[in-house]
């Protein structure tokens, strides 16, 4: 309790709880065999953004805030499936998979979590906070030259979320935040597999620039909210809360 009161920007918790109304749901494409999207009562809220965009911090705080407001909430993310996360990790470390293969491996991981975590939680009326969703997977593949139509079909199994927020942070600031965290840049987040530059710093800046461009392209198709991520954690969180309140009140 003491600790919670120290969190800046936390408002007094009111006793009245907003009950989300059911809205029509759909999948992006063919969907999943035998799943009726309209039987999913909860809310799916996605936060997208690069490593160092403040994604995890924001999700942690949203989670606390939502639970405080009386909503059962769960967090899901990429590469956490029981089915393939271990193998995916191994493959990534060895850098031995070609593009289509890695792409399908990630899609398998996503499908497994969609079916075993996201859908059951939504069915039970939970709010699901997704720490990245298909858009990151698509953007990574698009930067690597995969076909957009192919990806669209592949991820036609995905449920259309109630809201998607993309934390947009300039590559220069991302670099600083990554260094501030552990003085290093991640191989994949720097796009080293693409051979953009042998210099990791340059590669990181270039790669994150390419990712941002793909996110903009995806934004035009999927229409998600862009949140300026160069601001303070409090400011960003306040904007997210305000937008999520609207999503929850929406009929």
């Amino acid at each position, binding site marked *: 309790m003491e600790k919670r009161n120290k969190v800046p920007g936390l408002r007094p918790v009111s006793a009245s709880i907003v009950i989300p109304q059911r809205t029509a749901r759909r999948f992006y*494409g*063919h969907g*999943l*065999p*035998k799943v009726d999207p309209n039987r999913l009562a909860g809310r799916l809220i996605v936060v997208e953004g690069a490593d160092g965009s403040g994604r995890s911090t924001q999700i942690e705080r949203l989670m606390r805030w939502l639970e405080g407001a009386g909503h059962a909430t769960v967090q899901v993310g990429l590469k956490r499936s*029981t*089915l*393939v996360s*271990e*193998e995916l990790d*191994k*493959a990534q470390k060895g850098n*031995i*998979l*070609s*593009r*289509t*293969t890695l*792409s*399908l*491996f990630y*899609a*398998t991981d996503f*499908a*497994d979590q969609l*079916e075993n975590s996201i859908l059951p939680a939504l069915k039970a009326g939970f709010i699901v906070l997704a720490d990245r969703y298909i858009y990151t997977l698509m953007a990574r593949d698009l930067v690597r030259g995969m*076909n957009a139509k*192919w990806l669209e*079909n*592949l991820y*036609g*199994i995905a449920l259309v979320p109630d809201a998607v927020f993309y934390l947009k942070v300039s590559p220069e600031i991302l670099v600083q935040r990554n260094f501030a965290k552990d003085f290093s840049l991640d191989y994949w987040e720097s796009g080293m597999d693409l051979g953009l530059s042998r210099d990791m710093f340059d590669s990181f800046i270039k790669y994150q620039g390419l990712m941002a461009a793909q996110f903009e392209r995806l934004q035009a198709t999927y229409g998600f909210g862009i949140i300026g991520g160069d601001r303070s954690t409090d400011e960003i969180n306040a904007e997210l809360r305000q937008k999520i309140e609207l999503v929850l009140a929406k009929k």
Partner: protein
Amino acid sequence: MTKTFSELGFPGRLIAVEGLDGSGKSTQIYLLKRWLELQGLKVFFSEWNSSDLVKSATSKGKKRELLSPSTFSLIHATDFADRYERQLVPLLRAGYLVLCDRYIFTAFARDTVRGCPPEWVRGIYNFAALPDLTFFFKADLEVSLNRILEGRPQLKYFEAGMDLHLSNDPYESFRIFQGRILEQYLAMSTEFNFLLMDANQPIEAQQSIVRELIAAKLDLSTFTTEGSHAELNLSEQTSRSTKPVPRTR
């Protein structure tokens, strides 16, 4: 993709065999492989669901019955993509004769029977070129079923299609499941130019047709190993790992 490797200008050729479990296709492709190898040709054999990397995930998924129709489909697509990108395409670029025991049609048939939308499955596999020749081994359903079921083997959960809840009895489930897969295969037969083989015939009769068709449709002399001495290759190619063992588990 709607083009074959030859239409795409690859120097190599891909030959696929398809058919139900127990149709004898593995025996036929093994004999074909031996015939080609003994002529000193560049041959590579690849089996469905055999990529090392993906295997551990697949077998975990199967053992623990963690797979849904979608993840079953995706994990097999991952396995296929791994073999396709790392082995099949480079070998076909290098002018190999690549023999595949099952190709994308296995996924088209199985995944559709499991309830995945056919367009979704086909869309996923459209990075792959079509085989230059596809042999479809068509045995009477009862014949293939009996070959598998004769020894009352322990049928595996997904192999028997138990995930479809067609029957609580694995044998009955297997029968229904295989029947549906056969329907799917037959429906694709014309579209993908399957060479229909009568799998009720003796092994030798089938193999002689296979060899005649291959000799007629391909110029085998173009697949000779550069400066080859066929004899030198003999010992290493009598590898037992690819030799199919009749299934009496």
